[in-house]
């Protein structure tokens, strides 16, 4: 199964999951994506940039090693005017992450758990 197909399967398995992006946070590049609705590259890039700003923590703006957090974040949930988003990052030193846009009825805990498993699977497949 291709990464695109894996992303589509994750998205369709969860109510309220609208877009899933597989991204490289070190470069800010979108590597693959699946969306339930027609979207634009700009929106996918914006989701990726938001993920970069969220890791490794508040104030760090993506600059690894300077996080004031007492732990290395693995998952970030964020809600603002642009919607409800969650980001799941592969364990260091990997820099890949899944960036997800969801609607308010999504169960983020289950969605993020499955996203973490998918990331591990993608990493294992190399």
């Amino acid at each position, binding site marked *: 199964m291709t990464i695109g197909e894996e992303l589509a399967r994750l998205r369709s398995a969860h109510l309220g999951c609208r877009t899933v992006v597989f991204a490289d946070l070190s470069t800010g590049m979108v590597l693959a994506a699946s969306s339930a609705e027609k979207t634009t590259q700009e929106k996918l890039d914006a989701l990726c940039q938001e993920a970069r700003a969220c890791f490794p923590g*508040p*104030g760090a703006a993506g600059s690894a090693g300077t996080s004031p957090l007492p732990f290395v974040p*693995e998952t970030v949930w964020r809600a603002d005017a642009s919607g409800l988003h969650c980001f799941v990052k592969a*364990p260091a030193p990997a820099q890949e992450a899944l960036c997800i846009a969801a609607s308010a009825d999504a169960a983020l805990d289950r969605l993020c758990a499955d996203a973490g498993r998918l990331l591990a699977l993608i990493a294992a497949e190399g």
Partner: protein
Amino acid sequence: MRSKSRDETGRFMQAIAAFSATPEKVTAMGRELTPGQRFPMQAILSEINETVLRRRLVFRTEPEGELVIEVSERRLLLVEAAPAGLTAHFEGLAGRSLTPEDAPRVWALFDAFWPGNGRVWVTSHLPPHQAGDLGGMPVRHLFEVAEKSVLPECPSQVVSALQETEQRAMALVMTRDGDVVFEQGEVASITALKDELAATPHEDLTSPGVTLWLGGPNSEEARLRVVMLKDQIGVACDPAQAPRLFNLWRPLIGAITRQ
């Protein structure tokens, strides 16, 4: 709700701290109170909360103010006397059995007696008479009034969310225009939260939002950040509580951004 294990750990740490604390000095004025960490009056409420047997507590300020109350089983039974300058606050409360409905007025009297500046001493005495059951007001009603009075001015929905967050979090720090206006919880976590809030770039604070950072499976802490116009709230919490707190704030952020 705060977990039982956390409460027990907190009590244990308080007991350990008490062993190493500097002995309290007792003078002719009585034992001097240390203003509460959250609000000065916390010290007076704690005296009531820690008094199980029936006692008359006399609080003194310099030069000659005296507030005399009678307490039993963590309840405030009577306000017997108050300084002459507080007649307006004291009227209607003097010498009668108190009920929970009196909590706001009693709080106002206490607050006027000790607004936080100056020193206060306390002495404990056996009451001159052992009347029958006088009812009285459980001290928790005064704590509830106090909580509302120390929270910053916010819409009622935000105050409710703050109160629930406070109950479920290890620590909470709220800033307004960069200044700390409210803090609660474990000291080390408060210090860390202040550093994190101060480290946030200004551009990250321009739009309302709520963000939750969760660590790996073995992480013992999560961080929640709420940004609402001039206010920022940083929360340290148990990961098990984090989704509930995120979902508590999310609708409020939605309401703010729709305004």
